[in-house]
């Protein structure tokens, strides 16, 4: 996974994959690969959220 990808970019890719698959443009041969990529993107986004949450918690705790 590209480490320079931002959360928003990852979400865009995810939505694009979703759209491609839903529209039926994709070849069946590509489905599995695309699903794999989608799962990776979701995981990436979740990790980003978790990292941000850790930061947020730390910042809030420091301020108290």
């Amino acid at each position: 996974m590209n480490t320079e990808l931002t959360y928003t970019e990852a979400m865009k890719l995810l939505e694009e994959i979703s759209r491609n698959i839903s529209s039926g443009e994709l070849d069946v041969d590509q489905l599995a690969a695309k699903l794999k990529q989608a799962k990776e993107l979701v995981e990436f986004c979740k990790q980003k959220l978790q990292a941000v949450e850790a930061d947020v918690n730390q910042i809030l705790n420091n301020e108290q």
Partner: protein
Amino acid sequence: MEALSLYDLNLRVRSVLEDTLSEPVWVQAELSSVATRGLHCYLEFVQKAENGNTFIAKARGQIWANKWALIQPYFEQTTGQPLSPGMQVMVQVEVTFHEIYGYALNVLDINPTYTLGDIARRRQEILRQLETEGIINLNKELELPVPVQRIAVISAEGAAGWGDFQHQLVNNEYGLAFDVQLFPAVMQGERVEPTIIEALNQIAAEQDRWDVVVIIRGGGATSDLTGFDTLALAENVAQFPLPVITGIGHERDDTVLDLVSHTRVKTPTAAAEFLIHLGVEQLQRIDSLRASITDAALQLLHQQQMRLERVTGRIPSLWELYKTNHLHRLDTSLSELQNTIRTILDRQHHRLELVSTQLDAADPVRIYRLGYSVVRKDGRAVRDASMLRPDDEVEITMERGTAKARIQ
């Protein structure tokens, strides 16, 4: 021709005078000089013409020690002033004539009320004149600058009043700083007017350097205030460009100078206290402004803190909401994707099945299984019996196996 000796003549004059003016008389006159020698007081009385410039009468006089010891305190206590030149007096006199010293008035009593009345009348005249000139309130109408710190003092050098004033100002308990400079003047007698006017002129020449003028003199046991009751002095003070404060050390009544000055206090010490009071007022004003600024700032700070706390307090829940939304969105998109893919796969699967069913249906084996057979002639399926002729050889394909046959 017979002639009298001078001595005889003087004796005769003396006896005439003593016979005709044997009783004491009250007389009104102006003093033109006053001098004490030993315990006696020697005077000169004059009367001026109506126009005020030429003498129309003059007489020497004296108050012997036994009378002077009574008259002096009585007069000074009543009028607040010593006998002095220029003063109008009403005195009870004995007319005397001495063979050597000549005509003289021996003062037995004095009416200080007459002098007071005269002083008051002269003051009234000066005040009327100032009013006519329209300047009587000019100095009072000046505003005291803020702060009052640069003080030009008119007083007599070495006078107790000037020392008191300085001491009081310098040692003020509030730590107020004053810039004080003395402009010396004579504070008693005839030189009061010209020297004070000279000092005022010096101050006016550098008026930007000063905030106020203070005219002070120490109050002695007796005080000669006549010098302060002159029109020229009053005009100078009334029209002076800086506020003038007077503290010329007397309790009884106000001189014209006091009436035209901006502020009048009784003593030099009181003048210093007045200036200190002005400074204290400003300090209090600053303190009160500082307090209100501090209050306002604290209040503002408190409000902003509350606002900040409210906003900060909302951050965790906002974050939770944000995170939940995004997690939900991620989960949903993934599961939707999986569903979509499943649907696609299902559909493809279904299509495959359909195709294979169709293929199955088309498979001849299935027909053979039903008991049907296919007749071929020359490798081609025979669909019409008219295509066949007797003795044609055909091939019959069944579920299991193939047989050859001949058409009859």
